[in-house]
């Protein structure tokens, strides 16, 4: 001990120090220290597991949100694919429906022309 007590000069009493040493004696058994070391390392391993779980728990909420978003997108795509054949058939139907009408009108105009020509020739 290199300390030099300038103001506080009470010296250590060897008998009191001896009694204190005995009172505060650490376990002497080597097995005790091996066991303590094992307990420390077990706590560290448990702490590492706990922190891994904490990380996993931290990711759980954003993970669930991402899964929900993926589910929504998938549902929307599915719905879109289900609606597509109807819209195609509707377009096809309108196209088919318009063409005969046009042809009919055209045919109708031609027949009127033929009819008019037939009237003029007959008179």
């Amino acid at each position, binding site marked *: *001990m*290199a*300390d030099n*007590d300038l*103001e*506080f*000069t*009470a*010296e*250590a*009493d060897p*008998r*009191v*120090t001896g*009694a*204190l*040493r*005995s*009172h*505060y*004696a*650490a*376990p*002497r058994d080597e097995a005790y*220290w091996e066991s*303590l*070391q094992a*307990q*420390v*390392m077990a*706590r*560290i*391993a448990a*702490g590492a597991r706990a922190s891994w779980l904490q990380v996993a728990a931290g990711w759980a909420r954003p993970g669930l949100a991402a899964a929900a978003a993926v589910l929504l997108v998938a549902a929307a795509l599915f719905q879109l694919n289900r609606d597509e054949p109807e819209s195609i058939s509707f377009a096809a139907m309108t196209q088919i429906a318009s063409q005969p009408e046009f042809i009919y009108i055209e045919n109708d105009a031609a027949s009127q022309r033929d009819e008019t020509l037939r009237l003029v020739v007959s008179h």
Partner: protein
Amino acid sequence: MRNTGTERELVVAAQRGEQAAFAELVALHQRRAYAIARAIVYVHEDAEDAVQEAFLRAYQALGKFRPEEPFGAWLSRIVANAALDITRRKKIRKADELSDYIPDRFSDPGESEELRRRLAGALALLGDRPRSVIVLHDVEGFTHVEIAKMLGIPEGTARSDLHHARRQLRKTLGNLQED
């Protein structure tokens, strides 16, 4: 488990995540850690808890530790903090309860029962901080500077605590020792 390598190498390996290296550091420092904790918490079981808690904290904070610095000094402060936390939690313990507890399982069997009883009573009357200071200084050999850092008190307070603790213990145990 490795037995070679300096403490610095062990620290660097532990910082890389090698638990075996940290286990070796535990083996190297656990006796000193126990002595510090025991000086502060008084009771063996609490000292054991403080040592375990301190090593866990040290492992978690290992990334912040600079390997060129002395690991023992850094660990000592962590041990002292863990022990002080336990002391704060158990502040309600009465002096009577403390003096009733005589941790004699590791002490010298040749020592008289009366001396043990009187010493336990005298230590209980000392109060937590002066008791820690006298044990850390006179039993464990720490300097006032080291004790002040560990306990988070001014160096002058450590000196004054030691002075008063020595006087009080000598006074309390004086009669018995003169017999």
